[in-house]
């Protein structure tokens, strides 16, 4: 959720964040989050970016073709590695599943619906992991992959303020969203956030964006941001 908020903040578009239990069903694609503008509802990063672009706001206009290609490639890397690793940790690591994910995911619903829904979601995620070949991975291998991904991101960022020099782009929003979530969410072990903390320029990057785009607004919005960060872990 944070990627979207960051992206919209970067475009200087005001937003209000609302948490709802049936949010997944309200969304046109079943995926969170989604934005509700006037009488239009748009979900997922790609369509939202295009929607915003059609309304005249775009962050990546200043990039040339090769840079746009690089940006798309890095976004895929983040989706491929970080998102899958987050899903793996939530749904395929037995300890985390039992202690955190099941209670959280099922919390809005009464028993036995909460157990049924969370088992269903777990089964779905495990099927997907098997199809892409992640089912055979151990937790150490997943953490290693995350480390490799962070290393690549850290190398690409270097000492620049944003990934493509002076201006933030969709990539910055996406990376911020994922990394901030990893850094601030409480799990059984801290290994995942430790991996990210190893890269000081990435933590500095997160802090910088947080200060620039989130703390500038009221305390309210940062509290909402923290709550919605937890909610995004439920996906």
């Amino acid at each position, binding site marked *: 959720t944070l990627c979207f908020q960051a992206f919209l903040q970067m475009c200087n578009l005001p937003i209000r964040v609302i948490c709802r239990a049936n949010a997944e069903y309200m969304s*046109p*694609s*079943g*995926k969170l989050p989604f934005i509700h503008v006037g009488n239009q509802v748009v979900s997922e990063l790609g369509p939202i970016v295009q929607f915003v672009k059609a309304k005249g706001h775009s962050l990546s206009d200043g990039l040339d*073709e*090769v840079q*746009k*290609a*690089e940006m*798309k*490639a*890095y976004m*895929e*890397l983040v*989706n*491929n*590695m970080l998102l899958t690793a987050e899903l793996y940790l939530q749904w395929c690591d037995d300890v985390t599943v039992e202690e955190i994910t099941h209670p959280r995911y099922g919390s809005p619903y009464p028993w036995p619906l909460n157990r049924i829904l969370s088992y269903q979601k777990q089964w779905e995620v495990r*099927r*997907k992991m098997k*199809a*892409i*070949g992640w089912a055979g991975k151990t937790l150490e291998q997943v953490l290693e992959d995350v480390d*490799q*991904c962070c*290393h*690549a*991101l850290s*190398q*690409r960022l*270097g000492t620049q303020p944003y990934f493509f020099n002076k201006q933030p782009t969709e990539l910055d929003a996406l990376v911020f969203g994922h990394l901030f979530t990893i850094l601030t969410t409480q799990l059984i072990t801290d290994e995942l956030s430790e991996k990210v903390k190893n890269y000081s320029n990435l933590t500095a990057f997160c802090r910088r964006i947080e200060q620039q785009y989130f703390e500038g607004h009221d305390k309210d919005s940062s509290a909402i941001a923290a709550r919605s960060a937890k909610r995004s872990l439920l996906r």
Partner: protein
Amino acid sequence: MAAPMELNCWGGDWGLPSLHPESLTVMAYAKFSGAPLTVNTINTSWRVPKGDIPVLVSEDIVISQPAKILNFLRKQKYNADYELSAKQGADTLAYIALLEEKLLPALLHTFWIEAENYCSVTKPWFASRIAFPLRWYLPGKMSREALNRILLTKGGPPLYSLTEVEAQIYRDAKECLNLLSKRLGTSQFFFGDTPTTLDAFVFGFLAPIYKVCFPRVQLQEHLKQLPNLCRFCDDILTCYFRLTVSGHSPAGQDTADANLQKLTQLVNKESNLIEKMDDNLRKSPQHPPRKLTTLKLAAGGEESSPLSRLSP
């Protein structure tokens, strides 16, 4: 230097060393980095190994996914990315992720799910290379796995039918090809003049689309509109694979080379032995008293034996 390494993978046709993208990636990387791999293509006399192909076997170690195989080769000092900067290494990872997310689903679809392609080309080709009775089962299983993968990763609301998913994945694939073309520009390889891991992956994914003759070829037609990518594939095929139409010459060339090497080694060994014997003979006069007594006692037996030792 290292233990002998063998790669078991699917064979090739239509001018390619292999039809399978992952096998092709590993073969290309081995050529780029100079790793001495013996390539065994799967044929009917084989029992198809369980698990993913390609498989690298080196003494007791068995490794199966392309990324892991490449890591292993790098640890054995066959590194094609030696001259890359850290940022270029990061770019490599990003572009490989792009290929896997955007291009691979369409590639799988063209080979395994598009009905005309599957029935007229893919299934007969693979079936002819698998032993009975697995040939009736394995291609179907590979097709189901491909469909599963596409539906689980790309399907799902708002795309409700297979045709919508298909339209989306082909759109993504064409966009990916355009991005690759822009990134390659006019250079020979993605990072300058020497090929690297990224070139191996791109070649592995593009070459089957480019060369295999399918009835339904929308992706191939799109690729042919990007001349720099076509030139990229052709260059690698001619420089690193040197294939004739039959596709057998590199294997023949390799065995001839190996035989020549063995012969040279044998000849060298022989000449070393001969030199050693010569040295011994020359050293022997340093102990004249012993030699004289033995000569006296043996009455010519000793004399004849050095001579007999010299003759082969």
